C-alpha cells in the first residue's frame, strides 16, 4: 500500500491544465508538419502554416493554443494499492482544474445547468472525470482539454449485428462529411466499436489519448484504422473544410466485446489542437 496526498494530485492536475493548453504535443505538431508536404490545396497549405505558426506563438508567449480551453476531461488510472490521503480523489482533481484554469488565464467554459440559466461555474470545474482501477501502486492522470466545437460533432449509432466493417466506415465518413469545418480539421478521429452505448463512446474518447501514428495492437483493427484514414481523406473536406487532401491526421479505433444483438459505433472527434498531457504519481 502506498500513500499519495490529495494535494499532490491537485498540483499535478493544475500543471497539466496549463501545459496541455499551451504546448502542442510533438507527435501532433509533427503530423501537421508532414501534412504540409502532402496537402494538395494551396489554401490548405496556407492554413496549415498558420496552425504551425500558432503553435510556436503559443509556446513562446504563453498564450493558449486555442481560446476554447475546453471541458477538462480527466482519465485517471488508480492503482489498487494506492491510498489517497488528506482528501477525496474527485475533489482533489476538481481543485486542480480550478487552480490551473485560474492561474493559467484559461477560459472558463462550464455552465452549471445545461438547459436552465446556464450560469458559468466560474472555475471550469467540474471536469468530466473517468476513473479506472488498475493493478499497482501508481496513479496515471491523462488530461484532455476538449473543445466544444469538435465535441459537438460526436455521433453514436446502433447497427444491425451483421452490418460489419462497412457500416463502421460509412458511419465515420458520413460523420466527417456532415461536420464540415465545425470541428476544425485536420482532425484526429476516435472510434469506439462494441460494448454498450456508453462504453463505445468512452473508448472512442479514450483512444484520443494515443499518439498520432500509434496503431491498435490488433492487426484487424489496425487495418480498419488505415482504411478509415484513407476513406476520410478522400472526402476532400480539407483543412478548415476549405477543400483539400488533409481532412484527418489519424483515426484511432478501439473495440470491446458486445452483445449478440448489437453493433454499437461511436465517433468522438478531436480538432487539430489535439491537446493531451499525462503524469504519473
Amino acid at each position, binding site marked *: 500500500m502506498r500513500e499519495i496526498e490529495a494535494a499532490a494530485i491537485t498540483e499535478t492536475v493544475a500543471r497539466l491544465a496549463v501545459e496541455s493548453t499551451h504546448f502542442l504535443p510533438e507527435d501532433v505538431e509533427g503530423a501537421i508538419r508532414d501534412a504540409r508536404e502532402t496537402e494538395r490545396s494551396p489554401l490548405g497549405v496556407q492554413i496549415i502554416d498558420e496552425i504551425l505558426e500558432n503553435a510556436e506563438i503559443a509556446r513562446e508567449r504563453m*498564450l493558449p493554443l486555442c481560446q476554447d480551453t475546453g471541458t477538462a476531461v480527466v482519465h485517471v488510472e488508480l492503482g489498487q494499492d494506492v491510498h489517497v490521503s488528506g482528501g477525496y480523489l474527485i475533489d482533489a482533481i476538481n481543485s486542480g482544474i480550478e487552480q490551473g484554469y485560474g492561474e493559467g488565464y484559461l477560459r*472558463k467554459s462550464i455552465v452549471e445547468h445545461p438547459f436552465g440559466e446556464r450560469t458559468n461555474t466560474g472555475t471550469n470545474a467540474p471536469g468530466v472525470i473517468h476513473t479506472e482501477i488498475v493493478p499497482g501502486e501508481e496513479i496515471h492522470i491523462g488530461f484532455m482539454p476538449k*473543445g466544444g*466545437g469538435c465535441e459537438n460533432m460526436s455521433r453514436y449509432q446502433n447497427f444491425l449485428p451483421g452490418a460489419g466493417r462497412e457500416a463502421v466506415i460509412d458511419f465515420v465518413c458520413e460523420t466527417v462529411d456532415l461536420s*464540415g*469545418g*465545425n470541428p476544425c480539421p485536420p482532425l484526429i478521429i476516435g472510434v469506439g466499436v462494441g460494448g454498450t452505448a456508453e462504453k463505445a463512446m468512452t473508448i472512442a474518447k479514450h483512444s484520443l489519448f494515443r499518439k498520432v501514428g500509434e496503431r491498435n495492437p490488433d492487426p484487424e483493427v489496425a487495418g480498419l484504422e488505415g482504411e478509415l484514414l484513407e476513406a476520410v481523406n478522400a472526402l476532400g473536406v480539407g483543412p478548415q473544410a476549405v*477543400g483539400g487532401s488533409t481532412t484527418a491526421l489519424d483515426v484511432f479505433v478501439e473495440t470491446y466485446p458486445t452483445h449478440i444483438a448489437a453493433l454499437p459505433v461511436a465517433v468522438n472527434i478531436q480538432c487539430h489542437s489535439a491537446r493531451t498531457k499525462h503524469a504519473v504519481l
Partner: protein
Amino acid sequence: MAETKAITLPLTDEAIEGLRIGDHVEFSGVIHTARDAAHKRIVTMSDAGEELPLDLRGQVIYYVGPTPARPGQPIGSAGPTTAMRLDPYTPRMLGLGVKGMIGKGGRGRAVREAIQASHAIYCIAVGGTGALLNRHITSAEVVAFEDLGTEAIRRLEVERFPAIVVNDAFGGDLLESGRRQYRTSSRPVPIGGGGA
C-alpha cells in the same frame, strides 16, 4: 500562396463587391465580438423594441469568446468559434445592418441566401489559432453585456487580421466548391454536408 487583399474597416459595399470565395483578406480597423448568448440577447431586445447597445449597421461581427487577458495585454487567445450555432440569429443580425461575419465552419442554406440578399460576406479565420490571432488585436474593450463574461460584446481594434472569404455576396460557397474540387471519394456528399 494566394494574393492577400487588405481591407480597411468599416466594410464598404465597394469592398464587398470586390471579394470572392477563396480570397485571403486582412482586416484592419474596428470589429465587434458576439457569440451565442450575445446574439440571443440582441435578437430578444430587438423583438421587444428595446434600444440596442450598439449600432450594427456596417459592422463586422467576430464570433469569439477569448481567454482572459494576462496583465498588460488587451486580450488572451482569440480564435473563431463555430458559426453554424449562430445561424438561427444571423438573418436577423443582417437585417439590423451587419455586413460581415468572421467565424469557423460553414453556414446553413437560409444564412447563405440571407448573406447574398443583404450583400454581405462571411469569412473564416483559422479555427484553433487563437494565439496567432491575438497578435493582430491591438485593443479590446467590453462595450455591452459585461455580465456575459467571455461572451460579452467587445470592441476590438485589429491590424491585418487574417481571414478567408467563404460566402461572398454572389452566392458562392467555398466549403462546397472546395470539397467538390478535392474529393476523390465516390461517396455522395450527404444532404446538409459542407457544414451546411
